[in-house]
Structures are given as C-alpha cells and as structure tokens.
C-alpha cells in the first residue's frame, strides 16, 4: 500500500469505527418494549452477604410461582429465572438479578443498570442496610419507580428518609431484636450488661433494638464498645469489655465477617464463653464457618430475624410445601431464613399490588400495594403484617435460642413471641430523632408496647404463658 493510501485508510477507519460505535450505542440504547411489567431483583453476590444471592432470588421466584403463575426455569438454580409470571393482566419480566456487594457504590451502579438502562419499574431489594439507604435516596428523586426492600435492616429508609415509593414488608434491624432484652432480664436475671457492636449503621441499629428493650425494662448497659467494621485484631476491643465478674452478660452485635473472630478474641481474653452470659443479634445464627467457637453458644438466647423457624401452623406448612415443590434442593432451614422469606414477602406484595392496579406501575402501583399482607410467620392481625404510615411493616418478632441441631450443627429454636413490633418502639425512635448511633438510644426506662406481653414458645407452639 502506498503511503497515501495508508494515510487515507488511517483517516477513514477511525471515523467509520466512530459511526459504527454511535449506531451501536443508539441501538443498544433501545430496550425491549411491550406491555410487560419490568422487575429487578437485587441481592448481594459478593461482600459480607454474598452467600445470599441465590437464596434471595429463590424467595422472589417462589412468590412469583405461587401467586403469579410463574414457572422456574431451573429448579436447582434460582438465578436462572422464572417465566410465565403474570399479574394484573400483564406479564412480569425480571430484567435481571442484581449483584451488590454490601457497598452503596456498587448498588447504585446496579440500580442505574437495571432501573435506568434496562428500564425496570420496580425493584425488589436491596439486601443490606447501607445499600437500602443509598437506594432510598435514589428513589426519593424518582417518584415513578417503586422499591420494595428485600431484607435490609437499616432504619433510615423508612423512618428518616421514608420516600413515598419505598416499601418494607419486614422489620428493621432494631425491630428484629425486640424482646431479647426483656428475655435475658427476666429469664437469666441480667441487670447489668455490656454491648459490643460494629461501628456502623447496621451495628448501631441492631444494638438500638437490644438496648431499647433491655433498658426499658430496667436493665443497665454499663459499657458500649465499637470496633470498626474492618478490624483485623479484635483483642484490644474485646478487652474494653468489662470482665465477666463485673457484668451479668454481653450482647454481641458484631457481624458480617467479624462475629467469629470477635468471639475467639473474647475467649482468648476472658476464657470460655458461657451461653448464659452471651446474647446477641441474628449474626449468632450464622456462625457456620467457626466451628471452634459456635458450640459454646448452644443455649444462649439470641435476637430474631423476623422469621419463625420451627413455628407450627397451617400457613407455615403451606409455605414450606410450596417452596419445597419449587426448589426441591432447598430445605426448611433455607425457607425460614430471612434472606429468602423477606424477598418472598416483598414479591408477594408486588403481585398483590399489580393485581389491584391492573398492571399499572408508578404512582398507581404505589397506591395499590397492600397495606396489610398475609405472612406465614405472623400470628397477630389474623396472620398479617401491617404497614405503618411510613410504609414500614409492623411485624411479630421471634427471639430464639441456639440449640444443637441434627448432625451437631447449631440450630435455632423459637423461644419467645413478641407481638406487633413497630419501628418506632412505641415512640422511642422518631423521624426527628437522630438515627441510631454510638450514644443513641440512651439507656432509659420506658413502657414499650410489648413489654410484659412476650409469650413463651415451646416446640414451635405459642403458649399462653407470658414470660416473667
């Protein structure tokens, strides 16, 4: 080729590529159109809760199979999707199963990808606390998109931020811990306790539920310790806790990847863990990878997750049966896992809402979404959760006890039934109050709506005995 030809070629080629690129952009910018309702199911596939990816997808799919006539594409792999779901006369199209990693930056990326590029109208998700705060902020500026929170436990999205298009059909992190403070006060005789919590919003929110409950009935939190979220060496923080002689017990709100190491550090500082001296939040259910510490927690009372593993009842059996039919590879332990159940409930609500709105999305869907939703793990209100004025669920809570399960692995069994727990804890948490933090809430005595109404649960049956 002569130099001139090469020169021309060099000139033309990039411009041609540019033109090609432009047309590619333009065409790929066109999404699929049609009358389907586009839904994005967003969970975490990486990060501290990365294991919940398939589980959350399973929850959403089960609800679509049960209430919208869908058929799962692969009954071994929930993220393969579902087809044939219809509600309100329109097909439900899942545009994608989003993949967060417990950070706001990634979830916003996924949100833009699924809600803007793929054009989803509804998001079922996200999964974790900080992600929900980011999505709630995003949703506030986009009133035509609807967000039904997956399992996030942060308080802000439905109290401080509370946009009109964000719904949550399960309790937040504080609500999950309702009742545990009272149980250890009455059953174990704890009067003074120390609490150790992750130094970020979910840690504070979860701890807030414990503190509010324990202090309301007269307990005292003598020390609060805040290890930062990515601590490598918990020993210095654990040492800030008072030694076992000075307190009646410890509340453990260290989670994610730190639960096991923090407990190990405790044992290295103060000797073996006694289950009557340790309580905590739902992270103690998931000590699956720490077989050297977990056995010693057998017998301790631990906060709930809004689910009731082992609860006996017709609604629960129906739920289990259908779920098992849909995904035979999963077990009841999975169906009772909040990560699956909360997505199930959220999607069920979506189907209800679409049926009522005739397939319309946007503001009409938001008006049509149910304010009362049947819930297998709720006994009050005829087996329904109710939404409060901020579209936040008022939900029964079920503190548990850790017991030895089949095969020697720790399992949880229901130990208490706390009726109708609302997000404000009877007015303790207000929209104008600062969000849970290092000093928030203060340790005050108060009459909570469920104080003195917690009933014993034996073998999955709620007795009439109030815990004294």
């Amino acid at each position, binding site marked *: 080729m002569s130099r001139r030809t090469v020169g021309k070629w060099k000139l033309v080629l990039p411009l041609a590529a540019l033109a090609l690129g432009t047309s590619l952009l333009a065409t790929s910018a066109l999404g699929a159109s049609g009358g389907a309702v586009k839904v994005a199911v967003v969970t975490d*596939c*990486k*990060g*501290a809760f*990365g*294991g*919940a*990816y*398939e*589980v959350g997808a399973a929850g959403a799919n089960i609800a679509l199979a049960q209430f919208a006539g869908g058929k799962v594409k692969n009954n071994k792999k929930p993220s393969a999707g579902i087809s044939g779901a219809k509600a309100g006369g329109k097909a439900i199209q899942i545009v994608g199963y989003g993949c967060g990693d417990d950070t706001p930056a990634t979830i916003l990326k996924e949100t833009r990808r699924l809600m803007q590029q793929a054009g989803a109208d509804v998001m079922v998700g996200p999964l974790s606390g900080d992600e929900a705060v980011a999505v709630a902020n995003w949703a506030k500026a986009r009133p035509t998109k609807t967000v039904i929170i997956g399992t996030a436990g942060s308080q802000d999205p439905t109290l401080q931020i509370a946009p009109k298009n964000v719904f949550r059909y399960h309790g937040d992190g504080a609500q999950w811990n309702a009742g545990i403070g009272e149980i250890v006060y009455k059953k174990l005789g704890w009067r003074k306790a120390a609490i150790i919590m992750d*130094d970020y919003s979910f840690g504070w929110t979860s701890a807030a539920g414990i503190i509010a409950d324990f202090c309301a009935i007269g307990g005292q939190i003598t020390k*609060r310790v*805040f290890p*930062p979220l*990515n601590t*490598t*060496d*918990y*020993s*210095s*923080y654990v*040492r*800030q806790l008072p030694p076992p002689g000075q307190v009646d017990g410890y509340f453990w709100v260290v989670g*994610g*990847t*730190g*639960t*096991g*190491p923090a407990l*190990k*550090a405790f*044992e*290295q*500082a103060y*000797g073996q863990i006694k289950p009557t001296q340790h309580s905590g939040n739902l992270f103690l259910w998931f000590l*699956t*990878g*720490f*077989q*050297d510490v*977990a*056995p010693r927690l057998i017998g301790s009372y631990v906060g709930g997750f809004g689910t009731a593993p082992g609860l006996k009842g017709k609604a629960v059996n129906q739920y289990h049966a259908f779920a098992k039919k849909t995904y035979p590879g999963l*077990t009841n*332990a*999975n169906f009772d896992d909040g990560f699956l159940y909360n997505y199930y409930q959220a999607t069920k609500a979506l189907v209800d809402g679409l049926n009522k709105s005739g397939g319309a999305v946007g503001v009409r869907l938001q008006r049509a979404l149910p304010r009362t939703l049947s819930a297998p793990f709720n006994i009050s209100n005829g087996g329904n959760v109710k939404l409060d004025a901020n579209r936040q669920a008022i939900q029964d809570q079920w503190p548990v006890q850790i017991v030895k399960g089949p*095969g*020697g*692995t*720790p399992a949880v069994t229901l130990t208490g039934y706390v009726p109708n727990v609302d997000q404000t804890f009877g007015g303790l948490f207000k929209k104008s109050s600062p969000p849970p933090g*290092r*000093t928030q809430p203060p340790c005050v005595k108060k009459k909570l709506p469920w104080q003195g109404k917690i009933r014993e649960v034996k073998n999955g049956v709620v007795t009439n005995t109030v815990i004294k």
Partner: protein
Amino acid sequence: MKLPRGLGTFDRPVAERIRAWGVMGTVPRVVAAGLVLFSLLYVIVIADPVVDVGSWRTTNFGSAIDNPGAFLFTLLDALTFAGLLFIVASGFSLIFGLMRVVNMAHGSFYLLGGYIAYEIQQSMTGVGFSVQPNEVNTWEWVLPLLVAMGAVALFGLAIQQLLLRWNQGQDLRQALITIAVSVIVADQVIAHFPRHVPAGTKPFGGNAVGIGWPGWTNRLVDMHIWGVQYSLARLVMLALGAAVGVALWLWLYRTRTGMVIRAGVDDRQMTSALGINIQVTFAIAFAVGAALVALGATVGTSQGNISQGQDGVWLLNSLVVVIIGGMGSLIGAVAGSLLFGLVTAFSTAYLPTAGADCCTQYSPVLTFVLMALVLAFRPRGLFGRAA
C-alpha cells in the same frame, strides 16, 4: 542485605548534624519528637481510668501506673499481633528486596492460602460443629499449614515464571501486572471458596470462615506479673513470628542460597556474571515469599477469619509494615511490624474515651498517620536501602 542504614554513619559530630538541619529541618523534628514523648507520658502517667464524666485524660484503663496489668495486656497484644504481621510482611519485603517486585498480589495469595488451609482442615476434622476445639489436634493444624504453604508457593512460582520473569527491571510495569493478578485471583478465589460447608449453607461467595488452633492452645497462661493471664494461642503466634524471623536470618546469613540472595540484592548482574544462576535464586525467593504468606494466612485464619476483603486488608497491612520499616530489609520488617502492632494496640486501649464520640475509633487512622510521620523524615522507611 546490608547493615541497616544509620549504623556506622555517625561520623560527624552530633552538633554539626543538628546545625545542618537548619530551622526548616529542626521544627518538624522537634514537633514529632514532642508528640512521641507526649504519647509515651500519656500512656504511662497522665491517663486516668474511667470516671462518670470524661475528660481528655480519661481512657479505658487508666495509665500504666494505675493499671499495670492492662498495660502488660496491651503490650502483649501488640507484640503478638506484630508477630503475625511480621510473618505476612516478611514475604513481601523479601520479594521486593531481591527482585524489586512490589507484589501487589500479596493479599490475594493470603486469601488463597487461608481458604486452602480451611478446606484441608475441614476435610480432616469433618464439616460442621461437632468439633470441640480440643479435638483439633496439632497435626490437624500443621497439615493444612503445610499444604497451604506448598500450594501457594507453587502458585506464586507459576505467576513469577509466567508473568514476571521476562520483564525484570521494569518496576512499575511489574507492579501493574501484579495488580491485575490480584484482581483476577481474588475474584476467582471468592467464586470458588469456601467449598466444605455445613448442610444447608451456601458454599462459595467468599464467606467468612475460620480454622481452629490446636486444642492445647486454648487456655490462659499465668504470666506471674500483675495478675495477668494471657492466651496461649496468641503467645504461640508470637513464637511463630520469632521463629520465622530467626529462620529467615539463618537462611539469609548462614546458608549458601542466602548468600547468593544477598549478593543478588546488591548486584544482580555481577552475581550472574560470576556464573551463578540468578533466575533459580529468584524463583526460590519468590516461592519462599509466597509460602510465608500462606503461613501467615493459616495463623491469621486461626486467630480471626478468612473472607472476601481480607486480601485488601492484608495487602495494606503488609504495605504499611514495609513502608515504615523499609523495603527489602529483614530488620525493617521487624521494626515495622513492632511499630504497627504497638500503635494499633495502644491506640485502641489508650486513646481518650471522653464520651462515646471520642476517640478510640480513630485508631485505624493513627496507624497511617504513624506511617506518614516516618516517611516525612525517612522517605525510604526506617531501615530502607537506596533503590
């Protein structure tokens, strides 16, 4: 490796050196020295134990004089953590010192090593919680350790031969290559581990798991001073760190391979010209460095956990240690680990606790402030050698 810089160069009278600083040199030095002195005094004397109302003097335990037991605890925490840091960082420093490769994939080697150790121990002890810690016998800890070390050493060797051998001398390019490797390896490890999980739990996803120390370490040892009882497991960690340090020193200064390594550090071309196969030495050094990381990972996983994100954490820890101590220097790695461990442990225990918003949560920031401080005065670290 050369003698640490500084020893043997005090050939000018002290007064003349100080005069050479000038005003711009003296002020920061005085300020820094003042801060260090104040911190020491604060810990030893000034701090008060917690009373109802906090002030800038209130700390969790009070001063060393009020509560010598707590001081000893914190000191032991610092030393034992430094032991672990040293094991992990020594590999990093060794690889850089010899081959001038900043192995940014160091963290992902840690991740790989930790998960391999977990898998091996799980397959030996049985998955799930039927294991009480005194059932983890020593062999069930040592074998995972050895397998992890071997596997990561081989893996590191493969990386070095494939990707780093042909572009020696191009520091930044190699750093970029190792960054790429770290991203890929971390992602793949997260996608494929952990594998042995109890029934009903989902595998993979880089979930947090831990392994157990051998059962006999699960007790408190009476230190016989000030009523302090300290965890034997942590003391074992310190002993391992010391053992690694001694072993490395012996290897580098008392064996032929070590001699070659030191020669290669000083003058690569000359060593090669003398007929020594420098490539084999590089390969050995890289493999040893990778094996050390896996050793550190096994210890770290026994002490804490292994999970996604730990690669970033340990890469940064190693970076800080070698930046403070100086790259390519064994004694630098020791010094860096000690300083890092001391600052971490003491800042958490002795920062003021005047109210819940102050101040122990700033301890992670302090370690990096320490690093910036060291670098302001010695840009190559305390014992760093000229490039």
